[in-house]
């Protein structure tokens, strides 16, 4: 019954800034595009796969079957089932856990995990009182009842509501939360700008080396991640004004991720399926762990991956020194800096239930092909971007090489995963 779940490969659209070249594409359009590129690369046209799991964070209620609709619009066999999953920015990671677990249990042999988000084509909803009035009018049994229900509409009900990325229980934006964490962990402006500059420089080098040639498919005239600025330096970043944390804040538009559009997909299969189909085996999905913190109670919103990493490393009997690569999703440069500090902080690690500090992560193994600050962060698409890139890095490094992936998410959640090169 036990099988290994291995990453065969991945594909994504280039990522664009909100309002950029992908602004006209819906979630379904972009997810279909990412699937089609993957299908073409691995000869899956007409194939029935075990399942496709994907999701979007900003999703209209009418997109309840987003992934199934994308599958039906793709060249996969229409008999391929699909489901939508969502765990904020950890969505793409959770879809890979879901697909790989089914493969490990022998329930399916092959599947696709993915995610998509459009900040440009985000759903707009009506105010709560107006929604309730419209529901009453809809349920009315006579024209008179309907008119009576609708007569309750007042001008103040008519302002549309854009999707909020504020935490519902604290009213703070993610940047507002991270600004508190930045102060609490004494993360400096210089540390953040160094992380941001390295992200752009690393991603630019990876593009120049052709690393993304078999990981990205052009879409709507966009051939490369549009947010990437290869000439970014610490000096240029130092000139930007604070965006979060007030006038004394250290978080800027340069060291925080931009709202983005894009989609990603990862092909995962059992070793047996890969061998039978002569497919490349890049890396094994070894294990994964999720965690959450009490941010309404005042804890650091984006540090949940620390507890997850501590529990996962203990379960696998590993230490930070065992990893050739560490990928920490750059929600903000300050999130990466605070996460690294927390790994080394005995008190914090004990407070979140670990036996002691996890230990130091060597900086030269961190986000070596760039991360979300340079690539962009279409929320649910980030997990698939990281898993596909990391699997390829491990395959190039050689059998037995290991990587730790960490992604923080809204709601005070976080997910970590271990991949091992084949």
């Amino acid at each position, binding site marked *: 019954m036990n099988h290994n779940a291995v990453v065969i490969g991945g594909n994504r659209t280039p990522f664009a800034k909100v309002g950029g070249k992908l602004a006209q594409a819906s979630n379904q359009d972009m997810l279909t595009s990412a699937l089609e590129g993957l299908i073409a690369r691995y000869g899956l046209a007409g194939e029935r796969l075990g399942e496709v799991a994907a999701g979007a964070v900003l999703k209209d209620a009418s997109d309840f079957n987003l992934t199934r609709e994308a599958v039906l619009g793709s060249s996969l066999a229409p008999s391929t089932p699909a489901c939508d999953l969502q765990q904020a920015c950890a969505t793409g990671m959770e879809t890979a856990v879901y697909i790989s677990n089914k493969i490990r249990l022998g329930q399916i042999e092959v599947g696709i995990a993915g995610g998509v988000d459009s900040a440009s084509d985000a759903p707009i909803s009506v105010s709560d009182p107006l929604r309730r009035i419209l529901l009453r009018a809809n349920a009315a049994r006579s024209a008179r009842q309907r008119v009576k229900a609708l007569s309750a509409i007042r001008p103040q009900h008519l302002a549309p509501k854009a999707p909020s990325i504020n935490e519902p229980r604290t009213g703070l934006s993610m940047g507002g939360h991270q600004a508190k964490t930045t102060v609490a962990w004494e993360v400096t402006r210089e540390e953040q700008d160094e992380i941001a500059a390295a992200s752009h420089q690393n991603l630019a080098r990876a593009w120049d080396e052709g690393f993304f040639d078999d990981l990205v498919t052009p879409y709507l005239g966009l051939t490369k991640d549009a947010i990437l600025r290869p000439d970014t330096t610490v000096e240029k970043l130092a000139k930007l004004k604070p965006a979060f944390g007030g006038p004394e804040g250290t978080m800027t538009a340069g060291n925080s991720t931009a709202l983005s559009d894009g989609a990603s997909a990862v092909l995962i299969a059992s070793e047996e399926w890969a061998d039978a189909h002569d497919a490349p085996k890049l890396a094994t999905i070894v294990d994964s762990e999720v965690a959450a913190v009490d941010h*309404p109670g005042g804890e650091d919103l984006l540090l949940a991956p620390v507890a997850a990493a501590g529990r996962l490393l203990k379960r696998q009997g590993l230490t930070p020194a065992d990893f050739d690569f560490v990928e920490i999703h750059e929600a903000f440069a300050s999130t990466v800096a605070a996460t690294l500090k927390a790994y080394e902080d005995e008190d914090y690690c004990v407070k979140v239930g670990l036996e002691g500090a996890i230990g130091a992560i060597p900086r030269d193994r961190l986000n070596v092909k760039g991360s979300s600050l340079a690539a962009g962060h279409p929320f649910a698409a980030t997990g698939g971007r990281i898993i596909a890139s990391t699997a390829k890095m491990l395959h190039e490094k050689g059998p037995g090489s290991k990587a730790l992936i960490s992604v923080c998410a809204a709601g005070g959640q976080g997910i970590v995963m271990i991949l091992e090169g084949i």
Partner: protein
Amino acid sequence: MTARPVVELSAPPDMRAAFARAMVPGGKGSARIPRTALALRDVAQDGARYAEYSRVCGFTLRDQVPPTWLHVLTFPLHLAVLSSRQSSVRLAGLVHVSNTMTIHRAVAADERLDITVHADGPRPHRRGALVDLVGRIDVDGETVWDGVSTYLASGMQAPGEIEEQPKPEFEPAGITGTWRLPATLGRRYRDVSGDPNPIHTSALAARVFGFRRPIIHGMWTHARMLAALESRLPDAYRTDVSFIRPVSLPSTVGYVLSAREDGFDTAVTDARGDKPRLLLSTFKKQ
């Protein structure tokens, strides 16, 4: 001490009529309050109104109601007591200074309630007279909730020694989060609470009473703070509130919470967390 006379009401008092009487300004003379308690028996809770109350205040809609909802159900009797002919204290210009309430056990939204309210005091205060409105809710003879709302009648007199209250302590310690209060919030809370005081909904009325803009009901802010704590609170607890300064509409406020062994100390503040608007503490009932 002789037993307090109780007048049984057959129906909830008309809030607007009671309010109109209660709004007639009282004198500046000595504060007098009725000795009579008012009671309403076998009151059914209105499910649709309770649902809207939960939405407006940020509570998850549960079968167990929050204590502030039970306070709202006693409020028509507060008004009725203060609009009685035996009361020289009028609601107009009264300042809600503090509140304490205890929920003795989980109360379900479909339980029928016996509600009793009477006034206590008056007690002297350096700015006037304090009056307590004391409420109690029973189910089948068991007290499930009780609460005391303390109001200041500015400029009125009461006999006795002034009890110096220690100033509530507040140390700015950064905010846990913020709430945005829209201009329409006063109207939405009025509709679920039945408190028709126009200082919460009309800029003109607010100015008459010395506020530049309408202010949100203190009991909304109280409820919103409990809603932020909801999953952390036990079935039975006491909650004490001091209303420090009113909150204008629209505005953004901050809140901060810290845990104690037997409850929470919380504050609603200005947006930066420097100045307190309301201080609230909860205490698990032993």
